[in-house]
Structures are given as structure tokens and as C-alpha cells.
């Protein structure tokens, strides 16, 4: 596995592999050309951002652009929008509807924007002006499109119904912050399609949404595309998503298109080494666990009398004067345990309570009811109990940029725990820090670095190193690989499994990504609305789910097999209501 990751990093980008053009999809070969990049390059100073990119989109075609961070995926979209920062220079042609974008006069370009070319942004809620009502924003757009005021209300209600928003009149009266991310994204889609555009550009449109919302958004997008027959430029880092949604896919790496062709071909049988590496590094939903995961050390450790950490009867309630009974319950009757050297995955929708459990087990939050047991002994509130707890279980936080104090150096950060124990000697700390960095595969030279000088993957590893300082038996990880590039994610997964092999560490991993859990965990626990609804060995739960929440989660994830239909139709959530 790691060899594939290394391949991604070392691959010499010398050739591009172009797949054949399909004749299917309603005769796309002869459909008018909407967008064409010919030998298009973007540089800033000496640094290339895009190098000699040649791509095209015909009417009715969906072109996916996939790649890791820094590949330059968003740059194409920005070029079409003429939103490049000043010091960027371009070369080559970028044609939209047959005209070169770089050459057209500003007024002509502005006339196209929002009308024949529409954008769907990554963060829908912040793309809507927070102090204006939805109706006001949409109306402004319709005015720009030339729709007379008298017709606007009807058009807006119709548009919102088209994207399956319940109670459109009420929504129009709301502000963006009153609505959820998924609803806001649908509003953005509605506004984008209001002009019946010819070309739609979607830049990571679903990245900020949770799995199930992502599915619904893709359904909506697909629906609208089919209805109005536009071309779509779909930018994403999610390979499987691209495979299902796009007709053709181009793989971008460091600004160069390394491979391009029909989606199924590029993603299932990639030809270029880099694309192959990407495919290999992407965990499969239906695949076997990671090679390092088996055989689990659990099997060779004699059965322990008690799990390292267990939660018994956890309940969390908040006082809320607005709800009935004056209290709101976000978790009830949760029992959970983690055995020695066991990797447990915790999955559920956002708001299901999985992060709360992690925080409670880590000691960052107190449950309203219930006990936490360490090695079979109930933990109380005394100082010595706290010391025992933090010596046995440590938390690895999700966002390494906020989890590391920007003003402290790496050696200082990873050995924080030593200070609390009285081991203050700098030389001791530095020695231990070097050990820890080696453990997580980081170079010793990073000891004196500041967090801002490191990459996301490196920061995450420092995060893990810090947690390892006290040699805990249990690591609690909250979404630590979401948002990482596929290759970096693979490295972190590898690291965690290696640590288990070496130190018999156990892991409670909270994640929304089923494929990661499949690779990593022995056991999976499914949460929904504050309760555990299903639990069991990973293979079993994912292959034969019993509870409908589990089934919904599995169905919401794009399957590995591109021939399967996904997303599966337009049933929408019965809970999808506009707020009062």
C-alpha cells in the first residue's frame, strides 16, 4: 500500500494519457462546443499553476476535474470567472461559446456571467449575503436576467420547488443563516439554473456537506442538468463521486492533465501511474481491510478482563426553554467499549452524537448521566482519576491548524505532557520529541518548526505524536482524515495501523467516511439521533446492514462499482423542514 503512495509522490509527469471520446449520451460528439481550453497555461511569476491544459466540454456533457490539493483544479473555474489575482499571467486560449475569455471586453464577459455561465460554490451559506433575505437576493438576480418584477415571485417559487425545497414562499422570506447548508446549496443551484445556463461550473459543490446531504445535492444537480441539457464542469477531489456523476474525467496533478477520458475508464482502469496511485490510495467501500490490519493483534493478546475504556448508560441533556419539558436530549442510553488493541469506528450523520461521545470519553465534556469506566473502574472527578485517565486515553483533534498552538514549536507541542508531570528539562524533552517524531515518520529537522511551516499531513502527524507522548493505550480520533488528500490520508491510516503493530494501541475513530472505517477498523458502531442503532464487526455491518440508518449511510456513499446507479432517486428526507 505504501508503495503506491510513494509512487504518487515520485511519479515523473512526462506524459498524458487521453482516453477515447464516447459516442453515447445523446450524440455528444456532434453537440456544440461550450468550453474549450487549448494549450492553456497559468503562471504566477515563475511558478506554474496550470501547464498546457487542453480540455473541452460539449453541450450536455459533464467533465470532471479531479486531483489533490494544489493541483490547480479551482484555477480553471477562476479563469472562466476572470477572478484571478493580479500577478497571475495566462497563455494559450480559453474559449467559452467560441470566444476567447481573455480577449472579450468586460461588458460582454459580465453579460455571460450568471446568465449563460453559472457557478455553484463550495460554501453555500457564506455565498449568500447574511443580511438580506433569500427572496431579495434571488429577485435581484432575476432583475439582472431581465425578468419583470411582476413575474419574479412566481418564478422564484417555481425554481425553489424544482430543487425540492419545501415551502418555497417561507424560504424566500428567510435569511441564509437560518437554513441548513444543504438547503442553501439547493438555493444556489436554483439561482444558477434560473437563467437556463449553457455551462455550469461546480467547484467542490458537495465538499462542505455531510454524506446524505451530498447525495441529495447530487440528485438535484443531476436532475437540473438532465432537464436543461447544459454542460457541467465538475471539480472535486472525490474520485468515486466523479466517477458516478461525470461522463469524462481529467486527472490534474501539479497543473498538468496527466490523464483524460471516459469516467469509467479513468477511474476503474487508470493508465497513468499517478491516477493508478490515486486509485490505489482511495479506500474501497466494499474492499478488504488494509493489509496491515490483519491479523489484528487482538488475537494474540490474552483476553483482558475489562476493556480499556467503556461508557455505560451515557445520556446528554441540555436545558432548552424553548422545547417541551424544558430540556432537550441529544444522547440517551449509550453503551460503548474499546478493548485492548481494538480499532473501533464510530459513524453517523452530523448531529447523531458521535463527536459528543468522543469528547466525553476524552474527558472534555461531562455527560448528564452515565459512567465512564477505565479498566473496569468507574472514573470519578478526583485529580488522581483525571491523571489516570489522561495517561491511558488521549484525543487527536480534527483540525490540526487549530489543535496546534501557532506560537509554539513542534518539540514544545509534542512534549507538552511532560511539563505537567514535572519533567521540565529541555534536553529531556527534545530527546523525547525526536523519538515521537520518528514514531510518526517525521523528519527530526521539524523539531524547531512552527505549525504554519508544515503541510496539513505533517501537522496531523504532529497532532498524533503529541497524543502519543504519554504512551496512551487508547487514541480517540475525531475525523482526523477527512479533508486530507487521498495520498496523505493513506499515509495516516498506514501510520495508525503501524502504531498498533508496534505498541498495541487501541483506537476509537469517529468518521463519516465508511470506506476509511472499512480499511481501518475491526468493529463499527452506528449512531443515529443520539443512540446506538447498530454495532458489530466491520465486514458484517457494512455488508449486511440491519438498521435503516446504517442502510441510508451506505446508500448515500458513492459505491466503488461505477456500474451501479448512484444516486438513487429523489426520495427526500422527511425531516427536511423549513424552520418556524
Amino acid at each position: 500500500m505504501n508503495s503506491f503512495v510513494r509512487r504518487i509522490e515520485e511519479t515523473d509527469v512526462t506524459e498524458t494519457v487521453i482516453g477515447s471520446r464516447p459516442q453515447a449520451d445523446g450524440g455528444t460528439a456532434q453537440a456544440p462546443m461550450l468550453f474549450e481550453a487549448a494549450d492553456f497555461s497559468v503562471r504566477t511569476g515563475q511558478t506554474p499553476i496550470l501547464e498546457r491544459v487542453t480540455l473541452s466540454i460539449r453541450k450536455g456533457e459533464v467533465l470532471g476535474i479531479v486531483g489533490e490539493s494544489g493541483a490547480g483544479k479551482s484555477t480553471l473555474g477562476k479563469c472562466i470567472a476572470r477572478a484571478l489575482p493580479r500577478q497571475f499571467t495566462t497563455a494559450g486560449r480559453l474559449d467559452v461559446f467560441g470566444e476567447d475569455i481573455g480577449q472579450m471586453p468586460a461588458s460582454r464577459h459580465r453579460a455571460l456571467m450568471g446568465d449563460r455561465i453559472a457557478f455553484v460554490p463550495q460554501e453555500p451559506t457564506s455565498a449568500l449575503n447574511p443580511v438580506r433575505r433569500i427572496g431579495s437576493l434571488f429577485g435581484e438576480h432575476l432583475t439582472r436576467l431581465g425578468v419583470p418584477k411582476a413575474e419574479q415571485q412566481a418564478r422564484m417559487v417555481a425554481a425553489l420547488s424544482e430543487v425540492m425545497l419545501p415551502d418555497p414562499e417561507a424560504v424566500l422570506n428567510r435569511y441564509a443563516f437560518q437554513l441548513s447548508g444543504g438547503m442553501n446549496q439547493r438555493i444556489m443551484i436554483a439561482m444558477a439554473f434560473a437563467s437556463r445556463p449553457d455551462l455550469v461550473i461546480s467547484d467542490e459543490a458537495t465538499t462542505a456537506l455531510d454524506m446524505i446531504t451530498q447525495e441529495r445535492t447530487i440528485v438535484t444537480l443531476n436532475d437540473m442538468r438532465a432537464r436543461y441539457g447544459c454542460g457541467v464542469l465538475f471539480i472535486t477531489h472525490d474520485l468515486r463521486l466523479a466517477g458516478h456523476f461525470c461522463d469524462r474525467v481529467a486527472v490534474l496533478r501539479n497543473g498538468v492533465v496527466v490523464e483524460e477520458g471516459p469516467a469509467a475508464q479513468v477511474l476503474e482502469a487508470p493508465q497513468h501511474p499517478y491516477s493508478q496511485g490515486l486509485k490505489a490510495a482511495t479506500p474501497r467501500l466494499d474492499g478488504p481491510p488494509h493489509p496491515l490490519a490483519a491479523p489484528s493483534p487482538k488475537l494474540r493478546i490474552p483476553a483482558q478482563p475489562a476493556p480499556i475504556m467503556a461508557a455505560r448508560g451515557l445520556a446528554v441533556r441540555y436545558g432548552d426553554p424553548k422545547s417541551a419539558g424544558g430540556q432537550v436530549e441529544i444522547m440517551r442510553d449509550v453503551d460503548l467499549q474499546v478493548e485492548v488493541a481494538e480499532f473501533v469506528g464510530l459513524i453517523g450523520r452530523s448531529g447523531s452524537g458521535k463527536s459528543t461521545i468522543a469528547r466525553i470519553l476524552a474527558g472534555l465534556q461531562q455527560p448528564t448521566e452515565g459512567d465512564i469506566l477505565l479498566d473496569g473502574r468507574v472514573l470519578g472527578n478526583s485529580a488522581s482519576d483525571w491523571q489516570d485517565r489522561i495517561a491511558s486515553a488521549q484525543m487527536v483533534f480534527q483540525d490540526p491548524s487549530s489543535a496546534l498552538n501557532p506560537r509554539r514549536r513542534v518539540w514544545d507541542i509534542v512534549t507538552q505532557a511532560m511539563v505537567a508531570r514535572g519533567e521540565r528539562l529541555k534536553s529531556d524533552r527534545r530527546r523525547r520529541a525526536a523519538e515521537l517524531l520518528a514514531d510518526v515518520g517525521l523528519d527530526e529537522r521539524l523539531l524547531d518548526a512552527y505549525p504554519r511551516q508544515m503541510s496539513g499531513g505533517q501537522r496531523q502527524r504532529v497532532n498524533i505524536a503529541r497524543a502519543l507522548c504519554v504512551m496512551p493505550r487508547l487514541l480517540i480520533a475525531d475525523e482526523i482524515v477527512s479533508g486530507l488528500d487521498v495520498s496523505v490520508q493513506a499515509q495516516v491510516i498506514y501510520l495508525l495501523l503501524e502504531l498498533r503493530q508496534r505498541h498495541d494501541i487501541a483506537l476509537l475513530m469517529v468518521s463519516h467516511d465508511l470506506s476509511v472505517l472499512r480499511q481501518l477498523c475491526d468493529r463499527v458502531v452506528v449512531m443515529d439521533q443520539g443512540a446506538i442503532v447498530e454495532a458489530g464487526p466491520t465486514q458484517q455491518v457494512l455488508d449486511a446492514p440491519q438498521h435503516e440508518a446504517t442502510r441510508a449511510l451506505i446508500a448515500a456513499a458513492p459505491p466503488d462499482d461505477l456500474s451501479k446507479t448512484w444516486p438513487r432517486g429523489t426520495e427526500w428526507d422527511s425531516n427536511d423542514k423549513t424552520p418556524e
Partner: protein
Amino acid sequence: MAELGLIGGAKGRAGGLRRNGGARTLKRLARRFATSIVTLLAITLLVFVVLRTLPADPVAMLMPGNATEADMERVRALLGLDRSVLAQYAIWLGDALKGDFGRSIQHNTPVRVLIADALPVTLQIVTLSVGLGIFLGFSGGLLAFTWRGTPVEAGIEMGNGLAMAVPDFLWGIILILAVGVGLQWLPFIGLQSPSVTVPDITGFVLIDALLAGDPSAFLDVLRHLALPVFAIAMGLAPTVMRVFRSGLMEAYTEDYIASARLRGQSERQVLLRHGLKNAVIPTITLIGVQASMLFGGTLLIETIFGLPGIGAMMVTAIGGHDLPAIQALTFCYAVLVLATTIAVDVICLALDPRLRIKDQS
């Protein structure tokens, strides 16, 4: 669904939240009003206690040189100065609620009367100053923003920085030196020229002049007020300009501005329809914060320009240890500042829906 949870806060259903937060706004304002009353009482109590530690004996100042100890005792008892501090405060409060603020020791007239004469002057000055300051600040900010990246912006910024370094009473002096003494364009003493008289209808000279149909008197007063008003406005304008401009720049980094451009809105439309409203909100908040500073500025400005407002009155009262006057003027100032803060609060609530609706947890 989790999405619904997002709306009502992680704590649960949003049911019960009135549409667009009408009831909540009223509750919030009511609470603010109640807090203000408490603050008012607290401030007056605080000042009351502080003043009682004065080394000087006000009674001794009042009496003629040959007064006997017995006489002083009598006067002290009359003024209530022989009771405990809290008792004195209670008496003062009781009287104040009835509108009786005692008699000024220096002028031997009811304080209420003195304030009634002086307050309109100060109010006129402050109103004009705030208006001018806001106007200058917003225009400067808008100009600097429209010309951002050009030398014009750099020039405005530099001028702004310089202007900010000069506190308002120094502006007053500079203006006197430059415009009053140097160029001799505008008068700088008093409220009106000696030859001009205005009938006393509302107590507000400017309004009275208009009501009496006397435009020349109106202009005369305005000329006298020009320098002091400008001085106070210069205490406010640079900060307003800075905050407004940075508010615009902040707003322009936000996604919704980019989004509007992507929908084909012109730069002018983007500025007017998206940038301005969002930038105005933090600026208004700032003005509220500066409110107390503004009122403080009137003290010196009125003294320097010889204007008979409550600022000048306060200065003489403090100099003469005129306790009843100081006390009453403190009350006055506190009311003014609190009223301004509440007004600013209301405006902000009207402009920013997030304050009305979002859960404050």
C-alpha cells in the same frame, strides 16, 4: 434531520421561535432598558461616594468669613451633610425622582433650572457634530475605498492618521488659532454675537431662531457653532472613516461578494447592494462605543469656545466643588450616554437580522 438541528442550535427544535424574531427583539430591548436603569443608579451612587471623599468642605466655602460654628452646623444639617453616605444618597435619589436636584452652591439657583438652560445648547452642538462627523467619515471611507490601491487612498489614509492623532479639544484650539485668530473667518467665543437676540420658545436657539422667522440670527448662531462643531466632529470622523473602510474591505473578502460578481452584477451594484449594508453595521456599533467619548468632548470644547452648555457647567462645578451640580450633571451625562447606546442598539437590530434571530448561546 441534522440540518434542522443546525438551525435551532445544536440544542434542538426551533419551534417556538417567532418568525424573524419579533418577540425576541422586544425582550432584548426591554432587558437592555432595565440594565440601563441599574447602571444609571450604580454610576450616580459611585460618583456620590467618590465626591464625599473631597478634602474641601463645601459648607465652609458657602459661608461668609465670620460665620460661627453653630451656623455652619445648621447649614450642614440643612444640606443633609451630617448623615451617612447611603442616607444622603437615598435622599438625593428620592428628590431626583421628583425632579428636584438641589440648589447649586456656586450660583444659588436650583440646579434643575441651570441644566434646563444649558442642556439644549449641548444637545444642539452634539447633534450637529455627530451629523457632520458621520458625513465626513462615511464620505472619506467611501472615497478611500473606491480609489483603493491608488495614491488617492494613500493620501486619504495619511490625512486620516494625522487627524486621528489630534484629540478633539486640540482641534478646537487649532481651529481657533488658524481660522479664528489667523484668518479671522469665523467667531469663536460664545453662542451668538452680542447684537443678536433670539426669543426663548423651545430653549433650542437654532429652532427658536427659525420659529421666529429670523434667518440672520439663525446664521449667526450657526457661524458661532461652526468651529466647535467641526472640532468635535473631527474627533469622530477619522475613526468612523477607518472602521467604515475596513468594514468595506472585510465585506469584500467574503464569499457573497464574489458570488454576486459571478452572477454578473456590476461593481457598482455589488457595492451598493451588498457591500454597503454589511459595512455600515460595524460602523454604527463603533459610533455607539464612541458615544461616551463624544459627550466627554463637550466639556473642553464648550469651555474653550465659551459656550454655555452642560460641559462648561460641569467644569466650573468641579472647580468649585459644587456637589449638587456635579451630582445632577453626572446623572445627566449618564442618561445621555445610555440613551445613545440604546438608540444605536435599536438601529443595529434593525439593520442586522443576525442579531434579531440568531441564538445568542
